[in-house]
Structures are given as C-alpha cells and as structure tokens.
C-alpha cells in the first residue's frame, strides 16, 4: 500500500516518482487542506507549496518515524493552518458555513464527480454528529487528544477509543 520504492526514488530526486506520488496523494491532500482553508483557490496555492516542500524535504521522511501518508498529512495541515493565520488569508477569506469535512463531501447526485469518494456521503451522513466532529478535529485538523477533549467537552481518556469506534463504523460500510 505504501509506495516504498517510489518514496526511495523521490528521495533521489526522481521527477517521475514524484509525479506518481503526486497523482496518488494530491486529491487527498487537497481535500484536507480545503477543509481547513475552506477556499478551493487558496487550497490549490497551499497544495502547491506542500508538494514543493515534499520535493525539497523528502530526505527528512523516515519510515521508522511513521507512515509516508502521515508525514504528508502533517506537512499539509501545518501549511494550511499557517495560511489561515496569515494576513492575506484573513483579508481574502469570505465567511463560510462549512465547519467540518462532511460539507465538502460530494453528494451522490453530483454526476460530475469522478472521485472514488462517490457514494461515501451517505455513510458519512449516517455518522453521529460527535463522530463527524471527532474525525474532523483529529484527522482533518490535526488536533491533539487534549485539544479535542477540550473543544468537544468530552473526557480526555475517551477521545482515542471513541474516535476508533467512529472511524470503524465508516470503515465497515466502506469495505
């Protein structure tokens, strides 16, 4: 699942490998960035910055520290959060009602969609609101357990296990 060979070639500055890695992850990364910046145009700017960083810093990734996807996630969320905090973003950003990732998931009836996520919305819609919030904060926004427990006002000790339960319900329906 993890493209170890491609990652190795990426570290050797192989542009073909980089292109394949972009194709594998760009949509995921774009989706995550977009749930944070809530503006497709800005999200594309951030996505560009993220992949330039991936190219430049590929040496810093080590499989001993974790998954490549996790490494990408951290770079992407940090870049997106930096963007949200920037003056330029604050000036440009219009108010949005989109609070969590579920608003970005395309509807089943959206015939333009060619995404693999086609059909996922109905499963997400079945999730309890607390589950959507938990997954949104922990996965999409990168909150720590403590930050999530404080934001959602749930006991710190339950964050991990509740998140697992929520994700599992999605996982079961997807498989």
């Amino acid at each position: 699942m993890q493209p170890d060979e491609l990652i190795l070639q990426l570290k050797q500055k192989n542009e073909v490998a980089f292109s394949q890695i972009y194709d594998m992850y760009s949509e995921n990364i774009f989706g995550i960035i977009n749930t944070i910046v809530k503006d497709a145009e800005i999200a594309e700017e951030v996505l560009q910055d993220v992949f330039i960083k991936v190219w430049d810093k590929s040496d810093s990734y080590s499989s001993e520290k974790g998954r490549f996807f996790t490494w990408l996630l951290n770079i992407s969320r940090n870049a997106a959060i930096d963007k949200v905090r920037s003056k330029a973003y604050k000036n440009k950003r219009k108010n949005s009602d989109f609070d969590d990732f579920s608003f970005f998931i395309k509807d089943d009836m959206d015939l333009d969609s060619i995404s693999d996520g086609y059909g996922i919305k109905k499963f997400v819609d079945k999730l309890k609101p607390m589950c959507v919030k938990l997954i949104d904060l922990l996965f999409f926004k990168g909150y720590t357990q403590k930050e999530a427990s404080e934001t959602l006002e749930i006991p710190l000790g339950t964050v991990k296990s509740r998140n697992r339960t929520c994700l599992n319900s999605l996982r079961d329906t997807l498989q």
Partner: protein
Amino acid sequence: MTTKEYIESGLLELYVYGTLSGKEQAQVARDVAQDSELQAEVKAIEKTLLELSKATSSGVNPSVKKEIFRIVTEKSTVLKPKVKIITSNYSYFGWAAAILLLGGILWMMKLNQDLEEQINLVNEQLETKEIQVANSNQNVQKLEDLLIQMAQPGTRKFILPGNELNAPNSSVAAFYDKDTGELILDISRLPDAPEGMVYQAWSLKFEPLTPNSIGLLAALNSPGNKIFRLGDIPESEGFGITLEPAGGSEQPNLNQLFALGTVSS
C-alpha cells in the same frame, strides 16, 4: 498489552493521523514494525482515511501539477549545474586546433631560423662579393693607370719577340717612356712560369751588352695579372726577359731567355 488490546485502544488511528506526540509516535512506529498484525491494521486505517479524504476533494485543477513541476524542474536545473566533462566533438576540434596551432608555431619558428641562416649566408656572400668588387675596382684602377701611362705622348710601344728556343710564337708587348723611366710589360702571351722559377726583366745596353735587372715579374704578381709596371728604368736600348730561380739572379741566364727586343727609335 496484547496485540488485540493495542488495536482496540485506538492508538493506531491517532498514529496514522499523526497527532500523537513525537515520543509516542516513535514508540508506536517501533511496535508496528515488529508486529505484522499491527501493520495490517495500520494499512486498513490508512486505506479508510485515504478514501475519506479523497471524497472531500472537489478535484484539483491540473494546472497545479504543471506549476509544481515547472518549479521543481527549475530547481533541479539550478541544483545540478551542468559540470559534465565535455566529450563532444567540439572539444576534439578544440584540441586539434590547439595542436595545429602549436605545430604551426613550431614550423614558423623553424622557418624563421632557416631564413636567418640564409640571411647570414647571403650576408657572408655579399661581403665576399664586396671584397671581390673592391679588388676588381683596384684592378680596374691599375689598368686605367696603365692606359693613362700608355697614352702618354712620350710612351712608345714595341714588341719583344719570343725566343725561338724557349718561347716560339710568343711575344711581350712593351710600353716605354724614356723621359719618365716608366716601363710597362705585357707578358700575357708568355707561358706561365714553372714552380720555383720567376721571370726577370732586364734593361739592356748594346756594345757592349750590358744587362741590368729592372725587376722580377713576380714580385708584383697576382693571379691573372700579366701586366707589370716598372719604374726608374735607366736609359735602355733594349729589354730582355729570362726565366730565373725564385728570387731572381744578378746576371741573366741566357739559356733561359724568353723574350728579347730593342727599343725602336
């Protein structure tokens, strides 16, 4: 903690999210690396997250990838300056040109040296020629002097016929000025004097026959010079030329008489 408990704890989800502390993250990574069941679980979690996150994408504009690769390619070319060793044909042309140039310079130096040698040689020849010309001029001057002398009103020309025995069919031309005592003898028609011998000219008075040496026709000798000018000649009635041992003799050896003639009046 068993593998099952580990999985059920929900730690692996947060590990894939990347929201654990650095220390926890590293610990889970080590645990996962040692347990294939944990690895399988991690992959399953990641798969779900990939699907979920992809579903949130509205589709990335293809121009983003183009721009990323434009920047990356630009960086690559900046990062890797082309310091390749030039092995193109141009370099061979360069070397060939350098060698040709060197060869050309050496050849021209050689040519220059040869020319200098030739100039030296020509200069030497020129010097020799100048000396020859000077000598010729001297000879011409002498001949001119002789001609002037011969053309003097008092100069008389007469012939000393060759002796029948020693020099048949030969003669010596003489130009004599009684008043100035100058005598010119042209012995060009006499045979060359043999080695160790010399022609000697005599002034003669007859009755009684009194010869007086007036000069060796070798003292002034120079190759090819057959005309001799003699001065302080006593008044004479005739002249004779004999062949004498080198250095000359006090009295003429009449056996070796080559030419004899009287001064015509």
